[in-house]
């Protein structure tokens, strides 16, 4: 046999640089900012046109964000539920077919490996979506169980359609069957097109999942239907602001996934991240359970909390103090929230601060104005509910806006 592939250049065989997702041709055409970043090896937009416009579109119209680079692991087989229940801190049995659950999983020491969303297609059929590459570990977790693990990261594309008019767009695109979806519901709305009422913005929104080959057609269909509804393609920055408002945590930002840390003690437990409600000590064994029980007894090392700060300067990275003197933590994600008009942040504090001790907390903010640096101490108050929350996010069927 002659080798017909001899003509392949190295670059063809091993593409260099970032890989375009199936939506890249459309994003490329819309992008005036030409601001791209790498996300799991894929080309992903930081900003398409203008971060502020994109942010306000999330809150007032509708937006499309390409979530294809997410890692997606399909877990199927008679033991899929048992395997995942041993892996996850929450009780996976309570996520029924046609539902999606936000979930965390830990190593044997109770340190969070990652968080993600678990989609349940059927009794024996799940997909796990997450930020961190996880195949090796998922295979370890699957060993000994009658399941099949498939890495679908490169074969399934995803679009996140978020905003008050997002359902109206689906409807005009002929996908009105999505009307029945309650938050965290999942359904195959058309053959091969799964839609879940999920997202990262705390608002009404959907995620649409399909084979790569079907991606562009769906994009165009949504875009055509959106004429009256003000759809905008957005980049990461606008979404990040929306997710801070919604109070969602981000891996590598608000916590360090344990497998990517080298130094001792940099991992965090779900309890320290404030997810006690997603840790089910009543169910059977799950990974890290014994370590977490011990920590619950001995006490947490840190608290990740939502805070509101004085002033309006974004507080990213700011150090936090108790009684203005004792350093007790730092801001992990901070932003001025345009919708709620509050200075908001997620912050990690050393216990007991942020937990039992919540008074007399201060943040040190550095302000740069035309070559002048200024330092301000602003008051900090710990919050318990999301900064942004809107009833339209929960109304079923959703109303047109």
């Amino acid at each position, binding site marked *: 046999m002659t080798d017909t592939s001899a003509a392949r250049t190295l670059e063809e065989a091993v593409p260099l640089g970032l890989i375009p997702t199936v939506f890249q041709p459309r994003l490329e055409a819309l992008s005036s900012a030409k601001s791209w970043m790498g996300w799991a090896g894929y080309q992903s937009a930081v900003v398409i046109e203008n971060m502020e416009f994109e942010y306000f579109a999330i809150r007032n119209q509708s937006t499309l964000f390409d979530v294809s680079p997410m890692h997606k692991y399909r877990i199927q087989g008679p033991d899929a539920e048992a395997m995942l229940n041993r892996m996850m801190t929450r009780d996976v049995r309570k996520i029924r077919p046609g539902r999606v659950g936000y979930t965390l999983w830990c190593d044997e020491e109770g340190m969070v490996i990652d968080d993600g969303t678990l989609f349940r297609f059927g009794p024996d059929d799940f997909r796990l979506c997450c930020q961190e590459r996880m195949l090796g570990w998922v295979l370890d977790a699957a060993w000994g169980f009658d399941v099949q693990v498939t890495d679908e990261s490169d074969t399934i594309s995803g679009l996140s359609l978020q905003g008050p008019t997002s359902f109206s767009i689906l409807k005009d695109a002929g996908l009105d069957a999505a009307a029945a979806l309650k938050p965290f519901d999942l359904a195959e709305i058309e053959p091969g097109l799964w839609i879940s009422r999920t997202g990262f913005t705390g608002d009404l929104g959907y995620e649409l999942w399909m084979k790569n080959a079907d991606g562009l057609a769906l994009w165009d269909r949504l875009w055509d239907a959106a004429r009256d509804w003000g759809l905008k393609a957005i980049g990461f920055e606008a979404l990040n602001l929306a997710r801070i408002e919604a109070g969602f945590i981000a891996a590598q930002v608000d916590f360090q996934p344990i497998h990517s840390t080298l130094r*001792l003690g940099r991992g965090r437990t779900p309890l320290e991240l404030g997810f006690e409600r997603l840790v089910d000590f009543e169910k*059977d064994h799950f990974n890290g359970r*014994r370590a977490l029980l011990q920590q619950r007894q001995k006490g947490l090392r840190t608290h990740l909390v939502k805070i509101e700060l004085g002033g309006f300067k974004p507080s990213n990275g700011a150090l936090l103090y108790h009684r203005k003197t004792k350093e007790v933590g730092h801001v992990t994600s901070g932003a001025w929230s345009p919708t709620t008009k509050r200075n908001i942040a997620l912050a990690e504090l050393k216990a007991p601060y942020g937990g039992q001790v919540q008074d007399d907390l201060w943040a040190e903010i550095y302000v740069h104005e035309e070559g002048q640096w200024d330092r301000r101490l602003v008051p900090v108050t710990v919050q318990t509910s999301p900064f942004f929350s809107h009833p339209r996010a929960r109304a079923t069927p959703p109303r047109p806006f």
Partner: protein
Amino acid sequence: MSNTTQNFDAVIIGGGHNGLTAATTLARKGHSVCVLERSSVLGGMMSVGGAEAPSFTSRLAHLLYNLNPKVERELGLRLNARNLTTVSLAPNGEHVEIDGGKARMMDGALHPKAVAFATLQTRLQRFATLLSRLSLRTPPKLSGSWTDPETFGELMGLAGIGLGLKGMGKVEMREFLRALLTNVHDLMVDDLDDGPLAGAMAADAVRGSFSGPKAPGTLFSLLYRLGNGANLRAPVGGMASAVAAFEDAAARAGCVIKRQSAVRSVLVQGDRVHGVELDDGTVIHAKAVLSSIGPQATINLAGIQHFDVEIARRAKNLRAKGTAGKLNLLLKARPEFSGLPAPLHQARLLIAPSSDYVEHAFNPVKYGSFSEAPTLEILLPNAHTPETPQTLSAVVGYMPHDPPGGWTDALRTKAERQIMAVLEAYAPGIGDRVQHSELLTPTDIQTETGAAGGHWHHGEMGIDQILNVRPINGMAHYQCGVEGLYLCGASAHPGGDINGAPGRNSALQALKDGAL
């Protein structure tokens, strides 16, 4: 019997010597204990069941040299054994008799390196005694993650404290810590030159291991074996009589012993053991379950879902490739080894004429094949009488547990021929005297005892699988995570050989935890 329910404080999986030791230790503290053995005979690797030829009273293990004296005392073992010296055979007839630290030639003259050997022995014995202090306790727990690269240093530092090395002097201490990682070959050849003396030490270090004497960490396994004084004892009446002594101790302590009772599953509920279920469906309830089979087999019995992912992975990856085989011969007449005085036919005879020879015997096993020049540890249990039939019991060094295509009849015949050829070179005419022979490969041993890979120690005694990480991190303190479930066999600290400390320590840990 099926579908009946019984209650005990503790159930022991496996009636090998460690299972029996654990059982006796618990029963002597007033607890009700039931030992469950799959086979029709007790003893596990001490006596693999279903002997075809009753004359083989030491079908597998044949010598006591590492039995923990405290175990022997606490159990009140009634052992009847005779002491042996070792003769390391040389192809040219210049055999060396080794008796503790003494090395003599066959004419009674000192071995040319006798002084160096005595010095080396004294030093090794001192190190071994220090190390053995760790044998009788649960290895201390270290905080922090084992993925930390500092772990090993921490372990060694801690070992230093635990061993009370303070009185040792800095130089000696440094030498000791270095020695733990050293290979046995370099040490022997440096001090002794390579020959039967070095070969004997090398062979003793690696017997049963998947490593040649040039591998790092092999001095550790030698020290482990010197830890209890290394007096060689052959039980009178063969190993079967030593098994009977363990059984007798257990029975006197009030243990219930059930043979032909294979455990099918360990019952776990709410992260606690509740007992076991046998192959025939019998359920036996117990507050604690002590398992003398390896970590993977124990995990499988309880159900993998009760264990952390990382622990299950380590158990899966445990290094356990057995390399020791056993040849048992029934002989028409007493064999005669060339150049070996008649009385010394009662000694332990080694065919390991140099450390290099041992290393070469190891090499093929890496590729799943079997050396034409294997090492042999030979006992002639009836050599003191001219009566027939005579027997020969030989541990064969380095048989693969997974030859490509498996242990076919043809391969067995070939292996046996190779071993006989080696024996013939040292004891001419032995082949003609064979009435009956039995060869047990690591695969047979795995089938009969259930030990992963048929491994002598239920898991390699490598530097990554000893002390605080024996058999694996996460199961290294006899505890398995699930409350009330313990490892009590050779895979647990301190390790294999007929030793008893794993069984005893495990029982004491269970008591300390209030599991019963």
